């Protein structure tokens, strides 16, 4: 019998019932876990009743005053905090590093699975490289930077090459055609991308630290890196393919 066969006992503590049950649902879909939830509706309630809070191995807890007070009554769980503001305000070892304001952007089943797998490990096995992407600082940082340059590339290209320049009225805000041509030529150069993002792109680092495998196709990033390696001017379609994968990944 492997460790995976043992259900992990988890509590989700969040005064917001809808968000609480959405997170619990994602965890339930993500793996073998016995899940308890605590919320306020209109009185504080456990569902189902927790027979012994000492049996809770892991707690996902909203960083609110009432939730933290309750947490103090639970002995020795592994705690993951989350906050409405993306966890920026929270100083703790494990924090969900993105905004969870309600059911709309609660964690996904695959993210739930990642969390459960990580906290099934013995504490000494929870090494930095095993920390789920959801809990890593700087999440979506390199990718955002790639996306912003893709956006600039595509905007300049549209300004120069799309027949109907009024299709996007904001393109009209861009500088004159000559300036755009010069800048686009610079961005077409693989050497430019390499000088900014590294040569080759740090694919392992991106995948390990920032890529959420449940969203978007990482192969598009690999293909883009291969295009850069060919040292030929980038084509619009190449950048569009990368930008498409990034917008899916980053939910832009």
């Amino acid at each position, binding site marked *: 019998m492997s460790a995976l066969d043992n259900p992990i006992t988890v509590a989700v503590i969040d005064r917001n019932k809808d968000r609480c049950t959405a997170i619990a649902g994602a965890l339930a879909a993500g793996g073998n876990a016995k899940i308890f939830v605590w919320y306020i509706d209109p009185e504080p309630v456990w569902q189902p009743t927790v027979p012994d809070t000492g049996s809770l191995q892991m707690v996902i807890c909203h960083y609110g005053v009432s939730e933290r007070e309750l947490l103090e009554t639970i002995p020795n769980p592994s705690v993951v905090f989350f906050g409405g503001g993306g966890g920026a305000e929270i100083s703790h070892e494990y924090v969900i590093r993105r905004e969870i304001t309600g059911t709309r952007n609660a964690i996904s089943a695959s993210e739930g699975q990642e969390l459960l797998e990580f906290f099934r490990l013995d504490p000494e096995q929870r090494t930095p490289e095993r920390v789920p992407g959801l809990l890593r600082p700087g999440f979506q940082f390199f990718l955002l930077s790639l996306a912003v340059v893709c956006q600039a590339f595509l905007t*300049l290209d549209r300004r120069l090459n799309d027949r109907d320049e009024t299709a996007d009225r904001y393109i009209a805000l861009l500088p004159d055609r000559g300036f755009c041509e010069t800048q686009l030529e610079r961005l077409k150069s693989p050497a430019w991308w390499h000088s900014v993002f590294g040569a080759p792109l740090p694919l392992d680092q991106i995948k390990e630290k920032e890529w959420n495998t449940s969203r978007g196709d990482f192969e598009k990033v690999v293909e883009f890196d291969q295009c850069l390696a060919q040292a030929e001017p980038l084509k619009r379609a190449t950048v569009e393919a990368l930008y498409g994968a990034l917008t899916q990944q980053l939910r832009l």
Partner: protein
Amino acid sequence: MVAPHPETTAQLSESSRVPWEAWQKGRASFNHDWLKNHYLLALDTFINVLDDLVENDALLNEYVSSLLPEWEERRAEIVGLIDEFALCMSPRTLFLTRPLVNCPPMDREYLGALVDTLWRNRRPVERIADDVRSAIGVVDAAYRELRQRVSLSSDTRSLSALRESRSTFGTFRYACLRLAQAVEVLPGTLEIL
């Protein structure tokens, strides 16, 4: 034309490696930690005390003298956050840190200005900020009226005296709630639009 690069961006890069993180922390500290999970909760409970739904003598004794005036202490935070919103939360700020800080200076300038222009035109940045400023103004007005009414009370710890201002407390609560909602509309992450 694209917007000129603000001089203050250079100052930001010195004071904070990633300005949007500091801004988000400030927003979370004000709206999530203080306004929603402290100030409004206390106000809700206080109104419940006025309505005889709960008893809480400690809160009754300290609310008007200690808790209510916290608005005066904290309002400068949200005013400052709104003033810095467009500067700190523009995707242009990505060019202040790695990897985009590796861009040649000329590219940092025009690419930053380009994405900033797109962001400001596709996201109603000024309108969102103005909505929050307007909500702050409504809270200020409700607060002034409340303070005025309470100052006329014979005893700011007397339940019966404070009940005479019950509707004004309700108005103030609604104004605070609307402010919290307006702040929530501000993006919580960097956006590329």
